[in-house]
């Protein structure tokens, strides 16, 4: 009996010591006056920039991740969270505004706003620049391994080429993948025509036997490791992949691409608007924007940062394409037919 008590005591003491060291090793700062909760995409920020922010303002940053806009929306809508800054994409921002889930940002507090290029202001999802500050932008295209693919990759049809059976990755993201099918068929990726959407669904279901996996961020690693011949990808991820494996190339298909923008917003659930605005301003500082862009490989809307970028990257047509000759569409909010979209996506994912 006493033996057992002793064992438990030792056990609990060990556990207590462990948790204390873990807590201390976690680097929690003493005496911080406030904290903010940031909700962002995976691998979408340079962590050292966060640390600099914490040091400069004494505000601790708690960080949470999401992998798709839909996942972010569900979490936000479910309630019970108190995120201060979120980084959604264009169509999602439009939806959040429509559903009155965002607070207006006091642009006068964002002194670095002037550095954002005009092409990235007053966009269709936030025409009066009241709710968002652009963070990164890009296109959607195909990343392929030049040692495994010897024909020109210029059309979305390549992802349906039976020659590459089980050598194709697709993104586990509703809008993105359905958009690819729509673009392949020549339709608008903002179509509300149910017949067109059903056709896109059939295309994706037809494609399933050729697809190795529907994935997320792990695809980057896999492509770098040569696990597959090609994947649909965002331009920023493409830049990262090409950086790590020189056999990889990025192509924007002739049917067109999805031009997308990610921006920082402040949800209504935020309890610390002031700190949130400071954070947004910090991210828009040219030096920080530069560091983020360099670290994650995405294209920055920050003109001042752009000037400081490595010339090689600035001239890289994959990362910074020629906007005039680009055939592209920006996603619009389709939440009024979200039921149709959800159903279609469920059926695509459930089929084999």
């Amino acid at each position, binding site marked *: 009996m006493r033996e057992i008590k002793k064992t438990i005591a030792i056990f609990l003491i060990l556990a207590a010591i462990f948790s204390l060291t873990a807590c201390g090793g976690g680097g929690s700062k003493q005496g911080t006056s406030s904290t903010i909760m940031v909700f962002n995409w995976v691998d979408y920020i340079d962590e050292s920039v966060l640390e600099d922010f914490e040091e400069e303002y004494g505000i601790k940053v708690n960080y949470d991740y999401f992998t*798709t806009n*839909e*996942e972010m*929306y*569900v*979490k936000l*809508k479910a309630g019970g969270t108190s995120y201060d800054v979120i980084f959604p994409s264009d169509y999602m921002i439009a939806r959040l505004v429509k559903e009155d889930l965002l607070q207006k940002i006091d642009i006068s507090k964002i002194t670095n706003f002037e550095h954002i290029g005009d092409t990235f202001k007053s966009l269709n999802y936030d025409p009066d620049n009241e709710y968002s500050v652009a963070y990164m932008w890009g296109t959607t295209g195909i990343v392929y391994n030049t040692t495994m693919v010897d024909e020109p990759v210029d059309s979305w049809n390549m992802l349906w080429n039976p020659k590459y059976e*089980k050598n194709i990755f697709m993104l*586990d993201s*509703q809008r993105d993948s359905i958009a690819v099918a729509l673009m392949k068929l020549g339709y608008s990726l903002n179509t509300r025509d149910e017949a067109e959407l059903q056709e896109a669904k059939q295309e994706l279901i037809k494609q*399933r036997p050729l*697809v*190795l*996996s*529907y*994935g997320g961020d792990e695809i980057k690693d*896999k492509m770098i*490791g*040569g*696990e597959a011949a090609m994947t649909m990808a965002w331009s920023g991820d493409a830049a990262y992949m090409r950086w790590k494996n020189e056999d990889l190339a990025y192509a924007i298909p002739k049917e067109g691409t999805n031009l997308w923008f990610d921006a920082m917003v402040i949800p209504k659930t935020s309890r610390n608007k002031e700190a949130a605005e400071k954070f947004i301003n910090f991210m828009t500082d040219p030096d920080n924007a530069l560091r983020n862009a360099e670290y994650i490989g995405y294209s920055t809307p920050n003109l001042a940062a752009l000037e400081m970028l490595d010339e090689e990257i600035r001239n890289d047509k994959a990362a910074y394409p020629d906007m005039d000759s680009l055939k592209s569409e920006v996603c619009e909010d389709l939440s009024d037919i979200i039921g149709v979209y*959800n159903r279609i*996506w*469920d*059926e695509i*994912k*459930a*089929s*084999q």
Partner: protein
Amino acid sequence: MKKKWLASPYIVWMIIFIVVPVFLVLFYSVAEQTEDGWRLTADHFRRFVDPIYINVLIRSVVLALVSTVICLLLGYPMAAILASKEYSRKKIMYLLIVMPMWMNFLLRTYAWMTLLERNGVINSILSLLNLPAIDILYTNKAVVLGMVYNFLPFMILPIYSVLSKIDDSVIEAAQDLGGNNVTVFRRVVLPLSLPGVISGITMVFMPAVTTFVISRLLGGGQFMLIGNLIEQQFLSSGDWGFGSALSVIMMLLILASMGAMSRYEQENGGGALW
């Protein structure tokens, strides 16, 4: 010792955290929100009755059954050998079987992710030996492999537990009465081990049919099992109605399997894990 009022705090707890949640799920599964409020609907369940989703259910059950059978085929001989007289260090054997169970379930699944890659460890070794490469990551074989790997100890342990408790004299008596090894096994050992087998089957089939981690990580989103479908509804599509209906269906599936199992258990006195 008539202190049944002592249970009341816990009963309150159970009502809040066990009963109410289940009722909420039941409610969401048959209700739909319209502009004027809630109304009852069978739409969510009706949506399930679609070949695509029935296939998901069938797929889950089939994969789980296959994994269970493989676990049984691999685990029974293992348990039998370990329980036999040759292995006297029972304590160590027990620990060796138990230890993988103590390792984090996700880490064990993750281990296979790295092993099964096209350019992973297994293929590297195979190519060194001039053997053909295997390409099973993101196939249903990988999912079954993941299930078997994770749940095999759960099959071995109860069977081993029951077998090692069989009194030697029972075996000796059967042998004295003229039974050869096969007969002794078939008519004495096997029936006695049945409670352990039932335990093992339950402890493998149930988590196998409801998992979503293994199919997500090793199946690469290619094999939507019913667990994945439920997860997608709650965390991506936001369709709580459909998700709840699916959860209810899953609960019924499990209760049915348990009902079938418990019939055997009652007849044989129940097999425990420890």
